[in-house]
């Protein structure tokens, strides 16, 4: 049996006791000190710093995102060691850019920071993956890709996660996606009834039992071309 872990205390580097936020102003207020540090370190890559509802949002350049995240994670004065969330926001205004949002926490300093990358309409929807820094980003980025179609460059396994792999209707959380889906109810019913209810396996999974070699020729060709086993 391995030796017991030593306890890691959150807030080890933060002075004083935290208190519940009270009378938080909608705009303005004290920004997170990390925002100033980021400006000093990555002057050209910080587009704007907003403080909304007491939370600091830093809008950063897409090209330098991974460097910024790595610096925030590694720097002794920041120590953003915890990735809370990765998500995206699409506004109803079709002119406004898409926002990809990272919520970071520094457990030792008890800080909370929001990073944003703006993706202009018509530009390529891709941002660097933060998976090399935070392993927890794996599924969060996959979900964001699934729901918004934003590619995370450098992600080891960027597949759909909540929708199935053969899902043809696009990315559900985009504003141009109708709330009831792109296809009519009768078409959705037809697809559901014609789908193969048996469990499906990916190429990777089929290679486990060396089952791939045992498949019929046509199915092997289809799989090698990127198809799925079902349907």
């Amino acid at each position, binding site marked *: *049996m*391995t030796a*017991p*872990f030593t*306890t*890691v205390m*959150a*807030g080890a580097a933060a002075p004083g006791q*935290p208190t*519940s*936020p*009270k*009378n938080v*102003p*909608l*705009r303005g207020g004290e920004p997170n000190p990390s925002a100033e540090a980021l400006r000093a370190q990555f002057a050209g890559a910080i587009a704007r710093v907003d403080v*909304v*509802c007491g*939370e600091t*949002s830093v809008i950063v350049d897409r090209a330098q995102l991974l460097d910024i995240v790595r610096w925030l994670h590694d720097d002794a004065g920041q120590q953003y*060691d915890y*990735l*809370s*969330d990765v*998500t995206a*926001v699409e*506004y*109803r*205004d079709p002119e406004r850019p898409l926002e990809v*949002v990272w*919520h970071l926490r520094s*457990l030792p300093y008890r800080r*909370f920071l929001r990073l944003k990358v703006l993706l202009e309409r018509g530009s390529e929807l891709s941002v660097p993956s933060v998976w090399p820094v*935070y*392993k*927890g980003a*794996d*599924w*969060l980025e996959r979900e964001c890709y699934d*729901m918004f179609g934003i590619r995370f460059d450098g992600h080891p396994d960027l597949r759909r*996660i*909540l929708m*199935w792999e053969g899902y043809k209707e696009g990315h559900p959380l985009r504003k141009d996606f109708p*709330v009831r889906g792109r296809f009519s109810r009768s078409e959705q019913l037809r697809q559901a009834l014609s789908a*193969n209810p*048996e*469990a*499906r*396996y*990916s190429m990777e*999974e*089929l290679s*486990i*039992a060396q*089952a791939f*070699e045992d*498949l*019929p020729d046509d*199915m092997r060709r289809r799989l090698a071309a990127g198809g799925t*086993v079902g349907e």
Partner: protein
Amino acid sequence: MATTKRTVEVELSTTGLDAQGRPIRRPLVSDESGNISTLEAPPGIEPDFEGEHMLINIGPQHPATHGVLRLVLELDGETVVRCIPHVGYLHCGFEKTAEYRQYTQIIPYTDREDYLNSPGNNVAFVLGAERLWGIEITERCKVLRVILSELSRIMSHLVWAGTTCIDVGAFTPFLWMFYQREAIYKLLEDWVGARLTTSATRIGGMAADIPDGWIDQLKHFTRTFPKVMREVDSVVTRNGIWVGRTTGLGVMSPDEAVNYGLSGPMVRASGVAYDVRKDFPYLDYETYDFEVPVGTRGDVYDRYLVRMEEMRQSIRIIEQAIARLPDGPVNVDDHRVILPPKSRATSDMESMIHHFKQVMEGPRPPIGETYVAVESSKGEKGYYMVSDGTPKPVRWRIRPPAFVNLSAIPKMVEGHLLSDVIAINASIDIVMGEIDR
């Protein structure tokens, strides 16, 4: 026999193929015209398993996966070499639907995502909405919400402990736990009228004040519950089978646990004292006296100990909350978000307008965004809401703790036995309603 493409799938998913590529058992297959027949295995060929890895599929319809989780496992003998989880079978599109709902109409959706912890989710959502509106709730409301959150935590941990005992082979604690859970449901039923899907909170207040005599019932619960905890303790905690089946499994070191984004009892069992109530407090949690239990080995057994201790600490918090519960109004006096009393809405012009506006259009928040996280029973539950000034949110994001915790399962089950996968999976405390949303 002309078989369809479907045949191979049936063989793979139900029985697997042997080394010669022939079905090990005889699965049912259908041919082109839909006739069902069995595949005849040629006689005299013994399967040869030497050196081959096996593909095992668990779920999505398997009682030990606690919902519709599907795990595809690569086994070498009985040891897990690789685990590929599949989720999404319960995806309901809550986040998409919420973009077409007013803020008050979203509260019932929070019941249904993590349905074992619904009162806690209600509290989390309205905290976010109040941050957006800039509303300061009353003291009585704060204390009532603390009681609600802690009852919700106990409720959820009871289900976890009961079902995990079943997974590992103990049945009696399950009955004791569910009996106590029933007692909490009775309390909630007396308060808000619902048991599972409570919708107990409103923006700026609560759905209802507590009824007369409710505090006495709650006191009765806080007195009797620790006795049941001691009984479970005496049956389970030092039980040889329980200890043997849970120690040393699914170990996550403190660094890994933080890097994988684990939260709640999962990260605390790994020795990281991160609790949103302590480190990013809300509802004046910093004024309550309670401990954050921390594990030392980060295995399934530690997760059990942490959750058991959390229930005792929750009882402590509830007792303090009862002692300080102030009198006074529950709801804020702000008719942007709180409906005026019906009697005034029918007699007073201004109240009627407020009532009409709220019901027909819904309350309008200012333009802004906020991410509010609470410590739910599973971990850091965050709601990120973005408003463009209309009564419906542009984006309502749920930060699902169980989803992130589950994403570490390939790391945790690697190298363990197949039967330990069930115990490790149970220790994550997954609720598929929250993972798939």
